[in-house]
């Protein structure tokens, strides 16, 4: 029982320490026919949390494209992943790539405008 309490406490500390502060949630859904939505809007320096739901039969990945600083994250089939991202200081269009590993991709445009 004490072991359980200790490990729960440890898990909470780890989640608190590394979970980071999430931003405005944006839902992205991956299905067998691609990812939606394909356009998003946000302000400069805005904290976002992409909540990516994978409803497709296979794995999907989300990654920054054309210089967008977002590391590749794998979303296993049937699972959801929360990915934090902060928009850059400059206005412009950021690109995200939502794709089947080794296969076709959907480009999601994130339009960043001044706040």
């Amino acid at each position, binding site marked *: 029982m004490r072991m359980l309490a200790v490990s729960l406490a440890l898990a909470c500390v780890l989640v608190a320490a590394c979970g980071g502060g999430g931003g405005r949630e944006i839902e992205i859904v991956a299905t067998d026919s691609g990812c939606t939505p394909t356009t998003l809007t946000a302000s400069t320096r805005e904290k976002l949390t992409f909540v990516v739901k994978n409803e497709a039969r296979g794995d999907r990945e989300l990654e920054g494209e054309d210089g967008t600083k977002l*590391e590749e994250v794998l979303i296993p089939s049937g699972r959801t992943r929360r990915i934090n991202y902060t928009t850059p200081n400059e206005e412009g269009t950021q690109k995200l790539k939502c794709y089947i590993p080794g296969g076709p991709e959907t480009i999601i445009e994130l339009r960043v405008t001044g706040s």
Partner: protein
Amino acid sequence: MLFSFLILLREGFEVALVLALVLAYLRQTGNRAHFKEVWAGAIAAALVCVGAGAGLELTATSLSGSSQEAFEGITMLGAVAVLTWMVFWMRRQARTIGRDLRRNVDLALTSGSLLALVSLAFMAVLREGLETTLLLFAGASAERGDSTALFLLGAAGGLAVAAVMGYAVYRGSRVLPLRQFFAVSGVIVLVLAAGLLSNGVAELQESGLISNLGGRPWDTDAIVSQTTTLGKFLHALLGYDSAPTWGQIVLYWSYLGLGLVAFLGGASALLSRFGRFRAEREPGLAKS
């Protein structure tokens, strides 16, 4: 950072051990004048390794998407093979390394060819150096969350400690726990290699080269997410995956299980081997 530190400590010490044994033997036999050939060979090999590292990095960055993942995945699996071979080879080699090196130095000296001494040092450093290059490259692929500066800092730190240990061997220090060093670092290297194996096959699956590694029996994303700093660190170092496939799980545990049994099963034999290695090495060094 921890990955690059451990790799450079272990590999760097193997290089340092060879150089220290050769230099100490030259000193004892009054051939200090030939130190420069040894250093020339060592430095030339180090430059070749830096070049090879740059080549690997350029190849990887010139590729994109799935072919980059495939290249990284294959490199990681190559690194697993090298690590495994290194751990077991070093265990066997430790017994005769001193005697073999002295014989080769004698041959080089009697042939009177300076080039022989240069190439002796060159080959010793090249072998370990190319291993290091491959491992660092595989580690850098897995440790993408880490900054380049931290990664290099870890490598420099490991090399510095290895150099100090090599100097201690050169001075004929007997307090250095060589046996424990190779036993403990061998276990650590096997654990790192198991993680690389799991990461490597996952990369190959992502690249599409392997189509199916089975289902994913659990998901610990809610406890330690791979998008967090801790998750990335555990992923790079130990091959942590919040939702691993059956293929990864089976490969990881069978590699680690078999590797540790084979390695530790020989631990008692290792003890006596190192006993002999030191006995054979120390009468010569006792003069200094």
